[in-house]
């Protein structure tokens, strides 16, 4: 898919998604169910994740990034396409066969308030993966293993008997991370891991994720709507719009040299905490909202809000490729570099 990005790595990818499609049928009728359409949540996404690296997936609500996360960890089966974890295909596996693979890929959820069972102690929550995968750690060592995990994520091991409500949002997210790390996975898929947290706490969790990556050699798929956070943590960024990746490149390529109109609009809309830049950054205000994924626009899905759209955009689907003058894959017929992040000189 991306020749330049791929060549840097000698190792095999730990996670590889090829042309992943996830459509949800919309059914009507109680006894006789008829399918009247599909929600095209994810529509042909390719990703390659190498050990120790981070891919950021950004997009607005409805772009399919959370569905993609579920497909990547095997919580949802793709409608078509393949997902390989450490070279093993999980896209078409039955539930009981998928379990051993799950050890290598774990999910960190967005909401630390609802993703922890309020009736379980922290010790039980973090130890639960060991109850499901009993051969990972001998039973008599589970207790010490849990304490080690809590210590690893910066929580006091003395807190094993406390309940989630006794912790703050940031601490709960640490519990969620400890649980995800229990089976020593190679890949963590983080679905909006810091968006529910205050800024002063956000930084703590981001720094923790970065430290864990260095110490354990983890690879991350980091899904977020906050482009500033993704810039900070990701090596590579994929920008999604209505189920498709519209642009994919390194952090510098996406943030400093965006080529897709949507990426440009998205970046220009992110406020920068510097009042001296007011009025000095390019402002692209998009019209309207993201269309429904049930009946997405023909051709390029962004064309209904795009200022560059022509008839061709309605008829043909632009492919995600580097093009004639490009540096990184962009799905646009009229891709052109434009710096919208920095102040206009």
């Amino acid at each position, binding site marked *: 898919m991306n020749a330049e990005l791929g060549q840097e790595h000698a190792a095999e990818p730990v996670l590889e998604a090829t042309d992943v499609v996830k459509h949800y049928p919309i059914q009507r009728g109680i006894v006789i169910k008829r399918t009247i359409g599909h929600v095209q949540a994810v529509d042909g996404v390719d990703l390659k994740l190498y050990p120790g690296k981070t891919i950021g997936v950004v997009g607005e609500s409805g772009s399919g990034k959370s569905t993609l996360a579920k497909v990547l960890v095997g919580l949802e089966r793709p409608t078509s396409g393949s997902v390989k974890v450490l070279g093993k295909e999980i896209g078409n596996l039955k539930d009981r066969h998928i379990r051993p693979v799950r050890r290598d890929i774990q999910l960190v959820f967005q909401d630390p308030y609802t993703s922890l069972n309020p009736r379980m102690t922290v010790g039980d929550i973090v130890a639960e993966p060991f109850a499901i995968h009993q051969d990972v750690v001998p039973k008599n060592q589970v207790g010490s293993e849990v304490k080690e995990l809590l210590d690893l994520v910066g929580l006091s091991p003395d807190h094993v008997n406390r309940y989630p409500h006794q912790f703050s949002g*940031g601490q709960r997210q640490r519990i969620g991370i400890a649980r995800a790390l229990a089976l020593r996975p190679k890949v963590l898929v983080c679905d909006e891991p810091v968006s529910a947290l205050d800024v*002063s706490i956000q*930084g703590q969790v981001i720094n923790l994720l*970065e430290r864990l990556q260095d110490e354990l050699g983890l690879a991350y798929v980091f899904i977020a*709507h906050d482009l500033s956070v993704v810039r900070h943590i990701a090596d590579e960024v994929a920008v999604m719009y209505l189920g498709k990746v519209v642009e994919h490149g390194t952090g510098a390529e996406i943030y400093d040299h965006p080529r897709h109109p949507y990426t440009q609009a998205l970046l220009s809309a992110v406020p920068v905490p510097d009042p001296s830049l007011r009025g000095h950054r390019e402002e692209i205000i*998009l019209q309207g909202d993201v269309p429904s994924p049930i009946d997405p626009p023909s051709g390029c899905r962004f064309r209904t809000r795009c200022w560059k759209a022509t008839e061709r955009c309605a008829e043909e689907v632009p492919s995600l490729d580097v093009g004639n003058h490009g540096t990184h894959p962009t799905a646009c017929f009229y891709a052109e570099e434009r710096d919208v992040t*920095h102040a206009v000189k």
Partner: protein
Amino acid sequence: MAQTLRVVGDTLPGADMNAPLLEVEDLQVEFAVRGSRIPAVRGATFAVEQGQTLAIVGESGSGKSVTSQAVMGILDSPPGHITGGEVRLHGVDLLQQDAETRRTVRANHIGMVFQDALSALNPLWSVGFQIGELFRMHRGTSRKDAKLKAIELLDLVGIPDAKNRVGQYPHQFSGGMRQRVMIAMALALDPEVLIADEPTTALDVTVQAQIMRLLRQIQEDRDMGLILITHDLGVVADVADEVAVMYAGRIMEQAGIHQIFERPANPYTKALLKAIPRVDTLGQELEVISGLPPNPGALPGGCSFHPRCWAAEDKCSIEDPPYETVATGHRSRCHFAEEVYRDER
């Protein structure tokens, strides 16, 4: 509802049009919870002039929303109680007025935009009816004319096809459009002050940009005073003239926009600015604020920020720092405000 249907004029008795538009002085709010009194706002002082935007910034629990509710007169009481201070509109202390006068003020003089438009709008009435209600209740307008006014307002806030959408219900609008409806309601009776409590927090960034532009434009057109309550320093940098930073129920620092960002005089502001990742720069490890915001029921002695402060000394845990002026129009609550301001600490 029939009993309350009466026409009330929009003048405020005793108003001195030469007095400042809205002044809040030493506002104190407490919550009575299980027999104890928890301080939520501990002496907030600020003012807004015509055409000026004041941003009140803070993390969750800092008291910024409670402050806005107290000013608006919609604090849930019980458990909330205003225990001291003044809120003066054109020199008239609103806290001394009866409920009927406050109701008039709320509609005619101070408008409010809430964070979550879906729960702020009534799902059982069409948006046109809800906007028109303001005219019927406060101006005695007929149903037919109220509807025409509603269409006019929907048009003003950029809702396409307002004529047909006026009869639709809140669930038929997208998040961004609902927020526009909220703004239309807040503007209906042409208030002098608009309070926007996290108006874009629930929205996607491209929609946030649309809404912020709309607010800015309307404020300029009508020369309103705007109080923007937010946690997002990026949004603040884009729109505010004046900034007040709140922490644990207190204003820690207040100054003009450029001074706050370029020469903060409070360690909390300084730390907060360093903790946010930026989209336009590739940061190294984020400098985080260690620890957690304090529990309002058990505030630390001395300066509330001292347990998390990098500049704290013994004095800070004993003595409450005074709120002092470090430069013209720049006040900070810190024992070492002068040194922090001169960047010597």
